[in-house]
């Protein structure tokens, strides 16, 4: 009797979530077998969407490769920066100073992505941007104009990733800082007596001690990198050409610009399959931590 009553308490949450998210997620799987414009009747085409995806759609492969590049970038740059800075901040004197650094590095995290995109869009602008104006003052105006951060297909993806990194690495740092401050200082004392310098202390004590956090952040990074969307959409919309196309932007374009919703669903299915290994691993880790 008691148990049955308690069920009612989870019911609203479960119903809301399953109607708004579970149901459309399952629909995606079904609609990937249909030719569908997003409105009106859908026509069953079997595996046609997937055939097209793997054999005809060059952009899909470009996007997939870009997602892999994106993942590698975010597995290295923000994480290395985050660990080093977290280590430095733990090693400086004074709690006030520590917390000031923490706020400063955390500040970009709370800025809306749209605004981050526009600030850096201006900084990068080849004609009126900050970099151009600074270069011009140093006498390299023509160099700055030819060096177009977002216009050059070879570096555009990297430029966008740098912007996302500006917004993101502070978060990684603060998470690591939490882990670093939890390390018992005795370890460092012993290491110092044994003559270990700061660099060695970081590699031999800090990094191993925060490895659970490191593993977790890396896993999250991989999952998020497969879904990256906002910065590319705000700054380049996949261009120039398709040089900054990501799977998410390609799904979006197919669904909402060319109205090939069935096809977009089939890309989403592939995206889900690719990230599912990591998602399962994530659930496994979290289950243990949360004691579910």
């Amino acid at each position, binding site marked *: 009797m008691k148990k049955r009553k308690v069920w009612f308490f989870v019911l609203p949450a*479960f119903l809301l979530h399953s109607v708004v998210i579970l149901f459309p997620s399952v629909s995606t799987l079904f609609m990937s077998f249909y030719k569908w414009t997003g409105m009106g009747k859908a026509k069953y085409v079997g595996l046609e969407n997937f055939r097209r995806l793997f054999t005809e759609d060059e952009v899909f492969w470009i996007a997939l490769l870009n997602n892999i590049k994106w993942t590698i970038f975010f597995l290295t740059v923000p994480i290395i920066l985050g660990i080093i800075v977290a280590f430095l901040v733990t090693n400086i004197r004074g709690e006030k100073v520590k917390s000031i650094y923490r706020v400063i590095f955390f500040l970009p995290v709370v800025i809306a992505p749209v605004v981050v995109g526009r600030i850096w869009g201006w900084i990068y602008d080849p004609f009126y941007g900050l970099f151009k104006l600074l270069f011009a003052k140093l006498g390299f105006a023509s160099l700055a104009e030819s060096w177009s951060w977002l216009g050059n297909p070879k570096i555009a993806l990297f430029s966008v990733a740098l912007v996302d990194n500006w917004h993101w690495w502070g978060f990684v740092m603060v998470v690591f800082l939490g882990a670093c*401050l939890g390390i018992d200082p005795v370890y460092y004392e012993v290491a110092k007596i044994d003559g270990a310098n700061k660099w060695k202390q970081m590699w031999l004590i800090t990094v191993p001690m925060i490895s659970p956090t490191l593993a977790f952040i890396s896993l999250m990074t991989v999952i998020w990198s497969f879904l990256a969307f906002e910065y590319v959409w705000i700054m380049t919309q996949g261009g120039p050409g398709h040089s900054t196309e990501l799977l998410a932007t390609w799904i979006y374009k197919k*669904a909402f610009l060319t109205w090939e919703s069935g096809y977009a669903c089939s890309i989403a299915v592939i995206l889900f399959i690719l990230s599912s290994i990591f998602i399962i691993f994530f659930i496994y880790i979290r289950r243990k931590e949360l004691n579910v």
Partner: protein
Amino acid sequence: MFKSIKRNHLINEKNYLLHVPLLILAIYSVSPLVILFLNSFKSNTELMGYPLNFPVIFRFQNYIDVWRAGNYWQAYKNSFIVGLTTTIIICIIAGLAAYVLSFFKFSKMDLIAIYFLSATAIPAQIYIVPLYAYCQKLGLTNNLLGIIIIYCAYYLPFSIFLLRSYFLSIPKEICDAAKIDGCSDSQIFWKIVSPLAKSGYATLVLILAYWTWNEFFFAVTFLQNIKVQTVSIRYLRFTESHFTNFAYVSTGGIITILPIMLICILLQKRFIAGLTQGGLK
């Protein structure tokens, strides 16, 4: 955590060299924001000529112009409505679910817990296409109610586990004692558990305010009509039509980020703790 900060004091000798890389990175983090702030008061010609200088005169007129041209009053109103409603609904629904997941144990409850745990990792890109089609059929696109329902469902799994982490720290004995005194389960939830987890709710409110204010993916898809756009999407559209006027782009940027930035600075400890510990760790 704070105990260990104090103990760490022991190992910190005076090492000013460590400040050098930290200061450089601090400049990297803060300078774009400082430049944005200063440029928001300049005229566009002044900005082009002297992008890094202090403004000659602070043109507050920029703010009035952008506020009007960008239709920001409406956008602020929309963002407030969306943020507030989402937060209230989630606090109730997630609170109830978290209560069950923290204080009751029986076999099928585990399945529910795993369902919500898996849901924290399901990417929005997977279901956005059918979701949009269904919402369109139901008239929920370009509709504040539509985006509120979506946000409620989208942030629900995280919220449940955040609240649960606070609920779990409440001693079970308190609930047992209340039960002996004749409290029903729902009375225990409303009168005992929820008030004791006040700080958990406060953290959740803060995080939801920040997320709904900044949210981009759903908002850009579902809110095309200017009347229903939230602040960040309004800013996107405003900058698309004023992209040559970098002064206005800067002013709009400050208008967009100001409320959340102030809240974050004022309540940074709770904010950081909530984002990094309650949900992620």
